[in-house]
């Protein structure tokens, strides 16, 4: 009897996990992924890119639930790079951004996709974001030192810098 109860409990847990899996993933806006994909593909001229969702093992270090990573492949399956969608916290509100790494794991693109807050929007300035590009994945940044401070967007700028550092480690260690 007890065994049956346990089985029922386990079943319930699995159903809950299933529901959670669906709801957690279903709400990642399709529009946002499509937009990011279009922007990402521009990094690989004259190459047809097929994006493939990849599985990343959650570890203690990466306590963020909003990372979404795609492997970017050529038609024959050859790796071209990675597309990462994530979000960072400004003073009170999150903003969404995308990163593209090429096959050598050099960051080739970083763009803000959605900025919600009234303040700190200056982080989306392309000139400022350029500081992160063309550097190897091992690079770690310090806001105000090797990344220029940005007027009016200190908190968003710091938060994005911290998240780029985090994602660099994630991509470097979790991809083959």
């Amino acid at each position: 009897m007890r065994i049956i109860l346990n089985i029922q409990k386990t079943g319930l847990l699995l159903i809950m996990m299933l529901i959670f899996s669906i709801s957690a993933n279903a709400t990642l806006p399709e529009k946002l992924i499509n937009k990011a994909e279009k922007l990402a593909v521009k990094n690989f001229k004259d190459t047809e890119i097929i994006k493939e969702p990849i599985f990343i093992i959650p570890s203690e270090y990466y306590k963020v639930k909003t990372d979404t990573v795609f492997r970017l492949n050529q038609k024959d399956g050859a790796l071209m790079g990675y597309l990462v969608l994530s979000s960072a916290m400004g003073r009170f509100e999150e903003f969404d951004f995308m990163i593209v790494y090429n096959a050598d794991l050099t960051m080739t693109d970083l763009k803000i996709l959605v900025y919600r807050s009234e303040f700190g929007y200056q982080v989306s300035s392309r000139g400022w974001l350029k500081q992160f590009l063309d550097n190897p994945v091992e690079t770690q940044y310090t806001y105000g030192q090797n990344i220029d401070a940005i007027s009016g967007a200190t908190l968003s700028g710091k938060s994005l810098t911290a998240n780029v550092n985090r994602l660099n480690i994630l991509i470097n260690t979790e991809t083959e």
Partner: protein
Amino acid sequence: MKRILGLIAGMVFFIHVAVPQQIATGTQGPVNRANGLWDGRQETKLVVGGYGQIDYNQPIVSGEFQNGKLDVHRFVLLFGYQFTDKLQLVSEIEFEHVKEVFVEQAFLNYRINTGLNLRGGLLLIPMGIINEYHEPPTYNGVERPNVDKYIVPTTWREIGVGVSGTILPASLKYQAYIVNGFKGYGPEAQFNGKNGLRGGRQKGAESIISSPNFSFKVDYFGITGLNIGLAGYFGKSQSTLYHGLSKDDQPGKIRADSSVIGSSMVGLDLRYDKGGLQLKGQMIYNSISDSPEYNEFSGSDLGSAMIGYYLEAGYNIFKHVNTKFEKLVPFLRYEKYNTHHAVSESLTMNDAFDRSDLTAGLGFWFTEGAVVKADYQWFFNGADQHAQQLNFGIGFMF
């Protein structure tokens, strides 16, 4: 039963490999405070923040004793509530000098997308830098610039509706609002030569409207480190004398019209950060129409044009120092503001309203949100009067 479990486990596995993964292991630290962006923001709907400043102002007069002033100048609590991913409430409750309570902002914002928000409520008028960015750790000096007191009547907020948005590919932010205007008259004149339009702010407290005002600002941030803002504010002031007036009452209408002025204010501001260098500047010009009629009717001495500008340079010394603290910024600010930049023929220009301030000081930021400041100010005016003041302050935001 096992078969069913196997099936469920299989489905879970299938979904996990078939769709992109989000790493779901909870939240950590302030960076992820409002986590849950893509799953409906269920975790933190209420956001609490705040800012404040505690000042010590010591006037310096040679050969005289002067009392210093110690004041909890402002203490502001911010409450934000995220009803849905799109709909948000933003509010700030301010205690000024401990005993006066104000609502500094209170509006609902509906975000259609990054480029378009609809909002309504008690809104900050976007003009210059300080009126919108007024948290003490965001500016140098214990006190706000005086241009942002006499020319832009900070904190300037009125009730209205409008749109705002950030156009990311163009590096542009815009805001456009329709609000109630200044109350220029009721029960007596609220504008004057010294303080300009400051006395006419209605602050959302039983505000009256007799004609709507229009406010806009556009910010461009496409050049690294540079933010340029262009703002405009246009409209007539409000008057209680229209209330209850018969539409055929011509003398009454002329009288009411005399209690109203028109304001056309334009402002240009810039902020530039490069390395440790921080530059700030702004210029505000306000052209006032119908001031002769207003002054004659009310006995006031309002000018017909006001101007104010300032330039400020600071340098973060900690840029070159390996320290756990955030910033150490010496700065210098020069301001000029004249509420009698132009006057009508019937009014004598008061040179004492042509003022310039020089502020030299130092700020030490423990962290981004906590600062101690010290500065010395020299005040001059066109009537050859001058004054000096020493200030110390503690500022914070969270």
